[in-house]
């Protein structure tokens, strides 16, 4: 069973809501409905499911309805129509008391501008969720201190939010949500107000945290790079509607429409593509069987200036360039083993392009890509640069 299940949810702001709703059901667009009725469609007939332990990213530009959508999940904003099931219970039909229970125990939220209470200390802020739940003073202090300790902020517990930097404040915001020990965390542009370096650090922390605590996280962002970095799956929103849901790779390789395509044009590919995506098929030769003449022939046939030496099990042994093979032949050697270069830089197949760049920069020769101990491809400088510059990503065919 899905952790969260959103079915045909719409939110309409303004007047003439019934008429607007009719048009939503007919599948009309946000602008058309605004023109006809004057009502603004915040969220337009949206459905999706989130699995337990998943980081589900909702991505869109400002005004796309993503912040409205996330607020429908804990009903900070009332949905106009549709059902929202959390653990199989329909939040949209709950009365006030039931809704409070869900908010206290099941779903917590982290805010863009941190949402910390300026008149309370860090500890009191972290205790807030436990306090409204009626947890005893002692117990909530222990829990809050533990959450702050995990965030590395225990020593700041008696400070006030304004005394902390943005990144630290957001860590408190996250600690406050985690102290409550609910299994769903809604993060509304949680890192958008932070500067880029801190932001990257926080993303790493979130990924690491997720490996330890396994929450279900709904993460809202307007930054596709951030979405690709942390999201298990990504939903792209435009004008209140979800236009594509998929993994980062699915979206990059198979954009649903021009809108998504225009988005991924701006993606920093070095943070998305892996060595596997950009490597080329290696021209290989077995140096224990073949000699320099065979190597030269293969280079000529394939129009390359070097071949990679592997054994029968495709284990990397080294490489031979055209010059070396010629020299080898002149010296009268019959097996390549005696004249190939055995040192070769390697990278794992799932290394991100930004890290690959460092390796290839320091390497005078091409770099081999290794998967499960076997050679699967080669990275050549020109191809890496080409991949960075390309306007659309095509994942090369390979075995």
């Amino acid at each position, binding site marked *: 069973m899905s952790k969260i299940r959103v079915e045909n949810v719409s939110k309409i702001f303004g007047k003439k809501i019934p008429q607007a709703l009719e048009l939503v059901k007919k599948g009309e667009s946000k602008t058309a409905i605004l023109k006809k009725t004057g009502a603004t469609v915040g969220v337009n007939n949206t459905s999706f499911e989130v699995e337990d332990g998943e980081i589900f990213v909702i991505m869109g530009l400002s005004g796309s309805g993503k912040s409205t959508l996330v*607020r429908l999940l*804990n009903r*900070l904003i009332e949905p106009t129509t549709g059902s929202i099931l959390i653990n199989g219970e329909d939040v949209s039909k709950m009365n006030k008391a039931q*809704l*409070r*229970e*869900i*908010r*206290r*125990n099941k*779903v*917590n*939220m982290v*805010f*863009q*501008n941190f*949402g*910390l*209470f*300026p*008149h309370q200390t860090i500890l009191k802020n972290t205790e*807030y*969720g436990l*306090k*409204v*739940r009626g947890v005893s003073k002692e117990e909530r202090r222990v829990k809050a201190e533990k959450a702050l300790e995990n965030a590395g902020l225990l020593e700041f517990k008696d400070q006030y939010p304004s005394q902390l930097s943005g990144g630290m404040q957001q860590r408190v915001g996250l600690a406050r949500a985690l102290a*409550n020990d609910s299994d769903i965390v*809604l993060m509304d542009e949680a890192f958008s107000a932070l500067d880029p370096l801190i932001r990257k650090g926080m993303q790493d922390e979130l990924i690491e945290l997720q490996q330890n605590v396994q929450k279900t996280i709904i993460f809202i962002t307007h930054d596709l790079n951030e979405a690709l970095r942390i999201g298990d799956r990504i939903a792209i929103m435009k004008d209140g509607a979800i236009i594509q849901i998929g993994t980062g790779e699915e979206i990059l390789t198979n954009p649903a429409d021009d809108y998504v395509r225009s988005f991924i044009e701006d993606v920093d590919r070095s943070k998305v593509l892996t060595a596997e995506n950009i490597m080329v098929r290696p021209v290989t030769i077995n140096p224990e069987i073949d000699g320099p003449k065979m190597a030269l022939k293969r280079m000529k046939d394939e129009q390359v200036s070097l071949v990679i030496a592997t054994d029968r099990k495709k284990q990397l042994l080294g490489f031979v360039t055209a010059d070396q093979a010629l020299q080898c032949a002149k010296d009268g050697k019959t097996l390549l083993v005696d004249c190939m270069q055995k040192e070769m830089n390697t990278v794992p197949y799932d290394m991100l392009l930004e890290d690959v760049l460092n390796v290839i920069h320091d390497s005078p020769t091409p770099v081999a890509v290794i998967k499960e101990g076997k050679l699967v491809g080669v990275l050549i400088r020109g191809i890496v640069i080409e991949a960075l510059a390309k306007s659309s990503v095509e994942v090369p065919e390979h075995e």
Partner: protein
Amino acid sequence: MNNLLDKIPQMPLAKWTNDAMDWVTETFQGFFDSIQENTEGAMLFVTDVLLMIPAIIVILAIAILAYFASKRKFGLAIFTVVGLLFIYNQGLWDDLMNTVTLVLFASLISIIVGIPVGILMSKSTTFESIMKPILDFMQTMPGFVYLIPAVAFFGIGIVPGVFASIIFSIPPTIRFTNLAIRQVPTELIEAAESFGSTSAQKLFNVELPLAKSTIMAGVNQTVMLALSMVVIASMIGAEGLGGKVLTAVQRAEVGSGFVAGLALVIFAIIIDRLTQSINNKKG
């Protein structure tokens, strides 16, 4: 054209108002009487207690309060001592204490009633739109007019003075409370709600603490307005510094009018600075 306008009979609004007043006065006579007796008793008691304490102790106590409220600076404390000694010296101490009681009661009741009303206004846009014109009316109607129903309800004396002062001075507390709570950042309200706060938890943990300094600015205004009603209230028999000013006006005595007026100014400055510094200190 004018003839046409003249043909419309005059609307008897004044008569209606009189009738309504008469009805209210008669119907609730017992209620008003009991309020009048109890409040007057309480106020006389407070004044008596204030007068029982030697003036020098009151002066020193207020000076010490001023010293600590203004973050251990001597300015306000010195002004307090000099100003209050001057009032004592002019033989106006008893009148000052009467005025203190009047302002104290009017302000306290304004705050006790005004803050909850302001909270309700901030929670309900309908209630806000009903209250806003009423508050405008209360503030723009000349303060003298309130004396008429005040006398009708409570006779003459200090209680109708308090009643008129409250009506005139309560709007800032209500308005500022409403504004202050509406100004609490949405994100903090959402944060409070997202953790499952009840309305009361939200109000006492988040909204009121964050609204406090703005509400206190409103309270300060209310106290000042209550003070400004002192002279007007004295017209219906509320004793105090206001009464002295009124007497001086009636007898055209420039000297005693100036002295009593100056005493009022000194008192006003002291309580204004005091309430402001208490607010700043806490906020």
